[in-house]
Structures are given as C-alpha cells and as structure tokens.
C-alpha cells in the first residue's frame, strides 16, 4: 500500500521505536486566479530573471509557480520531550562562492546547528547576518582558505550578507526543531525518526502565509499530513 501511495520508489523505513511523518505542502493560488500555463510570452513566464531581463522590465512579471513552489520549510515539533532527538545537522555556506547571481533558495537548519562559513575564493570577505527581526550580527572577515563557524542561536529567517553587496549570499530558515527540511509544493517530505505521540507540524514560506496543524504519530508507521501555503486565509479587504 505504501508502494502504491508513493509511486515506484520505496519510502525509507520508519526508525525502530519511532514515528514517521509524510508531509505534502500544497501551494494554493488566490481563489479565482487562473495561473497561466508555462508558455512562451516573455512577460508572463516563470523563468528566473537575468540581468538583461531585469533591465528590460520583463522579469518583473515572473509569475509565482504554484505547481512547483520552492523555498518551503517544513518542521515538526513534538509536544513531549524527546531524549532520542538527533543533534542538529551542520550547515555550510561558502562565502567566496562567486557562482551566485541572485536568489538561490532558502536552506533549512535547526536552532543550535553549527553554520560553517568557508571561503573558497581568493578574496577576503566581510560577512554579516541579517535576521528577519532586523537584528544584525557581524561575523567579520573570512580570509581566503579560512573558515568561520557560528552556532545558530535564534530562530527565523537569516540572510548571510557580504559587505558591499545588496543581495544575500544565502538565506537560511532556522527552525526551533531538529526535524526540519526544505520542501517543494506537491512533493512529499519524509521524517522517519520523530518521537511517537502528539506533535505540531509547520510549514513556512518567505512570501506566502504558511500553516500548521496538530498530528499524532504512531510507532513504526507513517502519518500523512497535508499543509497549505497561500493567501486565502488572510483577512479580506472589500
């Protein structure tokens, strides 16, 4: 049954003595809006912008892709203390990476995780963080070949910035849970080692309102959850 539900791939087993969660996030466009099919009109497309398309004004019309919305962060918060919770996984952002041209997605991390900031370029970089609260954390200079490590001590969206550049080098959503993953709308996200019992499941997106729900996880099997991102729950202005 699990094979049929998942398609041709077998889902990983739930860890012994643990609960599993399969989360699908649905991105819902505004009720009444008809998303355009992926088509060729340059002013209504889904393609990421280039410097040239920004210059011409075409990129401003790039549409939100509700069929494959990315940058969604999903996390699980068990209601009861979990002595078997894994340690937060490390995160890496290369501050010397010159391959970036703009927004490159949002990474997921847990509060308490270590963020490594290597500099693989030949140029020193002055690095600082900007949190969605407005708080700024100065990291200082990272020399070529060097690496700084920082513990992520607060939750929320954090932008890794380099001095003199307007665009963030990378962004990380720091969740208050070790069970946190990135998601794309419609694609299941699996957690295999969560404490059985009641929990709350959240999804977040940098632009669209997210949602959360209560769930009950059972030992040895998956529980299916569907969450939504979208504006339809916001207060309407007549």
């Amino acid at each position, binding site marked *: 049954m699990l094979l049929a539900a998942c398609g041709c791939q077998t889902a990983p087993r739930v860890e012994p003595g643990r609960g599993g969660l399969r989360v699908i996030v649905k991105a819902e*466009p*505004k009720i*009444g*809006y008809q998303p355009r099919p992926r088509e060729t009109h340059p002013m209504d497309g889904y393609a990421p*912008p280039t410097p040239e398309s920004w210059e011409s*004004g075409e*990129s*401003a*019309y*790039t*549409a*939100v*892709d509700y069929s494959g919305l990315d940058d969604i962060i999903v996390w699980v918060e068990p209601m009861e203390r979990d002595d078997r919770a894994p340690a937060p996984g490390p995160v890496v952002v290369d501050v010397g990476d010159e391959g970036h041209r703009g927004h490159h997605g949002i990474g997921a991390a847990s509060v308490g995780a270590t963020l490594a900031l290597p500099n693989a370029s030949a140029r020193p970089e002055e690095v*600082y963080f*900007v949190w969605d*609260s*407005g*708080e*700024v*954390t*100065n990291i200082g200079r990272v020399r070529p070949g060097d690496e700084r490590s920082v513990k992520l001590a607060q939750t929320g969206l954090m932008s890794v910035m380099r*001095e*003199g550049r*307007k665009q963030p080098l990378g962004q990380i959503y720091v969740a208050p849970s070790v069970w946190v993953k990135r998601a794309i709308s419609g694609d299941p996200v699996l957690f295999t080692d969560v404490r059985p019992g009641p929990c709350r499941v959240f999804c977040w997106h940098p*632009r*669209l*309102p997210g949602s959360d729900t209560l769930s009950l996880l059972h030992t040895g099997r998956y529980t299916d959850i569907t969450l939504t991102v*979208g*504006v*339809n729950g*916001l*207060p*309407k*202005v007549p």
Partner: protein
Amino acid sequence: MVLAVVPLVISTARLGGGDSASDRNSGAVSGKVVVTASDALPEMIVFLEAADAEKKFEVDASQAVAVSQRGALFDPSLVVIAAGQTVEFVNDESRPIEHNVFSRSPAKQFDLGLYRPGAKGKKVTFEKPGPVRIFCSIHRYMDGVVYVCPTPFFAKVGADGSYEIANVPAGNYRVKTWQRSPRYSEQDAPLAVKAEPMTLNLTLSRK
C-alpha cells in the same frame, strides 16, 4: 535588536527667511545622516515617537497615499505613513494584468483580492506602527514595504543623507531610525523639540 545610542549632534538655529513652522508652538527637525563606513547610505527613515505613549496627534486620514503597481512594481516601493493613514493600491498597468496585494506582517495582515487595471483602487488603513511587507501573490518579485510611524513626524532620508521633519509640536519625543536593509545600529534617543527649527545630525555605526 541591540540599539546603540550614538551621541547626537544637536544645534538650534533660526533659518533665514523666517520661521518654517506653520504653528507658533511648532518646530522643525532637520539634519544629515552619515555612516561611519565607506558604504552608501541605506534606504531609511527618521521618525519621532512621543515620549508620552498616551499622547495622540491628529492625522489627515482623508488623504490616501497612492501606490502604483505598473510594471509589476510597487511605486513607491517604500511607503512611509503615520498610524491611522490610508494607502490606496492602484492597478495602473497598461495591459490587462491582475494583481493581488497582500501582507502577512504582524502590524497588518490583509488580502486585497484580484483586480485589474481600470478597477477602483483598493484602500487599506494602517493603525499599528511598524513595518508592513507587501507582496503580490501572482508576481514572484513584486514586493514593497509600508512603514507605519507612530506619529505624523517622519521623513525619508535623501541619497545625500539629508532629511527634514516640519511642523513638529514642541514637546518630548524619541528620535528613531529604520533601515530597509539593516546594516547599522538603529538610532533611538530622547529629543526635546522646541518651537523653533533645530538641526539634528545622526551618525550610524556598525555594531
């Protein structure tokens, strides 16, 4: 956020050509914002908050501030208003493009619904101070900010760092700053405004 109180340079000076305040009991606060680093000045505002939180000021709620959505861009992309004021979001696209303006910011959550050019502009009144990030649910890169100041006494800082806040009733305030892309410590300091023009220069420094 940790706030740094940088010593303010204050001087009172009578401007040439007569009093710029329209009310005998009002002053004006103007000056320059400078940064210690060699970077460009961030897009930012200077505003006053009454020292007495209970003190209220009259706000012209009849006049809405218009925001264009032409080219799938909010213009202005940073709107600064006083609490109690209204913003009208106008769909003035040159072709039949829908927009759906919304915000999920704690200071104001709203969804204006879908509307096309030619439809009446949609109005939102903002009551709570703070930043309100606005987006379009259709266009991925369309975003802006409505910053709601606690009083009608505010100014956007010019590219050269200059600002001017006119017609400020004499009294005790706190002078504050807000940067759209935070880099420097925000200012937050007491300010006594007298019924005459005053110069207040602000220096922003990194934490």
